[in-house]
């Protein structure tokens, strides 16, 4: 039987959800018997591959690059999981949403700068007007909230998906 193909990525997040994913400890062995991780911060691949079965997405959709990657992974993945509060609710990245982008960037990169003041434009993607939860940009199949989601919640969701069940967090559902 072919292995299930898992891709992971982080958009506007802090990598905490990926740390929690690593925290499933020996649980990863059981996961990797049934699956390969084909894309993610822990993998060399440069582009989201075709034919991914499960996409784990951390972070809010906050920049043009986030949006593009979200759309690409949606078109190339069967099941998209919003992993963690940023992907599920917008969370901390969305706290900027009441502030106009120009004001925000100047406050940080001009008023707040001690050297080389100036809003960076080269090599960084343009910010979207607001940082939004993943489901506002693309269709999301499973939501796993938590900041970060507890390792046992992630493992349960992964196990359910690998065994073809629809995940139900039940008592493991937790925001924050």
């Amino acid at each position: 039987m072919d292995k299930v193909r898992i891709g992971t990525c982080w958009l506007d997040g802090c990598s905490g959800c990926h740390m929690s994913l690593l925290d499933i400890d020996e649980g990863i062995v059981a996961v990797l018997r049934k699956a390969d991780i084909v894309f993610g911060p822990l993998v060399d691949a440069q582009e989201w591959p075709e034919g991914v079965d499960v996409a784990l997405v951390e972070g809010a959709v906050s920049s043009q690059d986030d949006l593009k990657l979200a759309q690409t992974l949606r078109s190339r993945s069967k099941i998209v999981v919003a992993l963690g509060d940023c992907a599920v609710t917008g969370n901390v990245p969305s706290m900027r949403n009441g502030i106009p982008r120009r004001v925000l960037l100047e406050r940080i990169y001009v008023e707040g700068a001690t050297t080389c003041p100036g809003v960076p434009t080269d090599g960084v993607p343009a910010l979207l007007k607001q940082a939004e939860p993943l489901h506002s940009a693309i269709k999301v199949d499973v939501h796993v909230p938590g900041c970060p989601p507890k390792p046992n919640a992630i493992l349960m969701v992964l196990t359910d998906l690998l065994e073809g069940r629809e995940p139900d967090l039940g008592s493991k559902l937790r925001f924050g």
Partner: protein
Amino acid sequence: MTEKVKVRIDGEVIAATAGQTILEVARTNNKYIPALCYMEGLSTVGACRLCMVEVSGVSRLLPACTTPIQEGLAVATTSPQLESYRKMALELLFAERNHVCAVCVSSGHCELQTLAQEHGVTSVRYPYSYPRLSVDTTHPRFVLDHNRCILCSRCVRTCAEVEGAHVWDVAGRGVGSRLVSELQRPWGESTSCTSCGKCVQACPTGAMAEKGWAVEEMTKRRAAVSRLTSMREGE
């Protein structure tokens, strides 16, 4: 002498006292009905709509906290329809303000967060409104964060009915409604506030908190406020 009446809650016949509300009867008989704006010892307002129940013979849903019981009343505390409306009400509360659990002093002890988790709210299907809201830090001991306020008015009623100071009110209309202290004066400049802190203890979320606590550290003593009223009733 108090008049006894019989009601049915989820099929079980329960003896209650005339004048009690559906929610009071349910809670004293260990029947669970969720609620956010209700707090034991305060008047009821029926604002949060989480305690809506089905009453046989009545075509619309009724709030359990404001509906008095009658002889022969039959109540259903849960149903697929009620559950779907409760989830909707919770999601709309999240969508209306900026509830960021990850940075909230009350995370883990928040009634809104707990109810969302209990009702299986895994995401909010309505677009967030991301309003830009202020945080009043003018009081020396307490802080009011409008981002986390759900306008349940428990603080308003606690201050007016238990402390007798009536510092708090709700100003504005609809989504523009805001909690205000003493006709829009900053909390720290209020002359009628006694700094008793009962409003803080009554608040179901992290909207009102004591200063000096970090994320997840603010626990509240809500029962202490309710106990004051019940002790006074016994006088």
